[in-house]
């Protein structure tokens, strides 16, 4: 069970990452521009007379989020590698769990910001009624994002040692996106279509189960990566 010291360390790691990111904001801006472009392309990539926006909107939203997350995750450990900081981190007495949670938290904030900024753009471009279901939609976004950021943080730590890390991360991570993204899309279109909450429970439990299992698994496995 993470104690208060673990939480403190996690915050410190996350804060450091986010401070560094905020200084240049390159990755953040790149992700946002990317998100806008993907939304635009997916809007036009259909037969507008045959496919109503509501049909294509949920998929477009989550493809956008997935790709933007991939961009964000990749930078997670790049900094450390470039400055050989990974060795420094390994020497600290901090527990692997704290380090992982910190990295994951930093990634969550990053991806979360991209998602929250993309959301109003999404509403604008796709003209969907979001206000009513907004709380539930935000919950869905949080749950799905936690799922793939957990696995993504772990994988990016491994992939950073390889030569083509920008390509390797998507190759390894994409299979893990299927359960959370499919669930999120199913939930999103039901929310946008104002379906009753009872219809959401199945997919919400899928998201919850995925999150619990993969966050725990990622925390445990991260320890294996650090100890060499």
């Amino acid at each position: 069970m993470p104690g208060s010291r673990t939480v403190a360390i996690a915050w410190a790691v996350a804060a450091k990452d986010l401070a560094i990111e905020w200084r240049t904001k390159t990755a953040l801006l790149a992700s946002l521009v990317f998100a806008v472009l993907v939304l635009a392309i997916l809007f036009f990539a259909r037969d507008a007379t045959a496919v109503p926006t509501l049909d294509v909107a949920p998929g477009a939203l989550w493809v956008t989020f997935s790709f933007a997350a991939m961009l964000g995750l990749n930078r997670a450990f790049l900094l450390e590698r470039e400055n050989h900081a990974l060795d420094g981190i390994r020497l600290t007495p901090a527990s692997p769990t704290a380090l992982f949670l910190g990295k994951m938290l930093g990634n969550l904030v990053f991806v979360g910001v991209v998602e929250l900024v993309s959301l109003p753009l999404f509403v604008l471009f796709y003209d969907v009624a979001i206000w009513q279901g907004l709380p539930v939609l935000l919950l869905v976004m949080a749950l799905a994002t936690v799922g793939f950021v957990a696995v993504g943080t772990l994988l990016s730590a491994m992939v950073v040692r390889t030569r083509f890390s920008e390509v390797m991360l998507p190759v390894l991570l994409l299979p893990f996106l299927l359960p959370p993204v499919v669930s999120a899309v199913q939930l999103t279109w039901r929310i946008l279509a104002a379906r009753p909450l009872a219809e959401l429970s199945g997919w919400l439990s899928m998201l919850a189960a995925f999150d619990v299992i993969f966050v725990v698994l990622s925390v445990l496995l991260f320890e294996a990566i650090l100890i060499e």
Partner: protein
Amino acid sequence: MTRLERARRTARRGTILTAVALAGLAAVYVRALAFTPIERFQGPAQKIFYVHAPAAWAALLAFTITGVLSVLYLLLRDRRLDVVAASSAEVGVAFSVVMLTTGPIWGKPIWGTWWTWDARLTSTLFIFLLFTGYLVLRGALGDREVRATYSAVLGVLALVLVPFIHVTVYWFRTLHPEPIVAKPGAPSLPGVMLVTLLSSLAVFTLLYVGFIMQRYALGVVREAREEGDLDAGA
């Protein structure tokens, strides 16, 4: 006996086993094509089942073993577990290729479509993709210790992921059923066909074991060569 001598013995035995299994495969071919009756409604294409299903079984077996050995490696850190896990992944890719090619070839005449995103097919496709990712990761890591640990981590993640994929697609399907022209259920096979299927399953399993032994031996010899200790002691 040194590690290398043991590995070479495993290679010999594995090669013999593979040869026997290949002969068995030829026998299964003869039996399936010439001595098993043609199914009345599905026609000769139904016989693809006798190679497709065992290949799928072998691929699934290979995947499970890679996953389980990955867990064991992380707990026990025995490098032999890593070599077997990697071997299982490579052999699994071979069987996956058979599975993923014979599957659509069977599907087209029987179901009327090359591919359908149902739970089983999607899971098998993803098993192939995960295998490939596993092997690509291994290829990109030079340090043996790091390679073994990192692939084991991926192996464990993949093992846990596949059931999630299966359930997700299954739920998706039950909510959005696609009309399938003629879907054979799980028919109870008459005796003659059942024997053909079971013999094929046995042969593919033997083939898997033979391949693993050969690939394992290859892995051990390669690693010994990398470390520069060709005449290494046990």
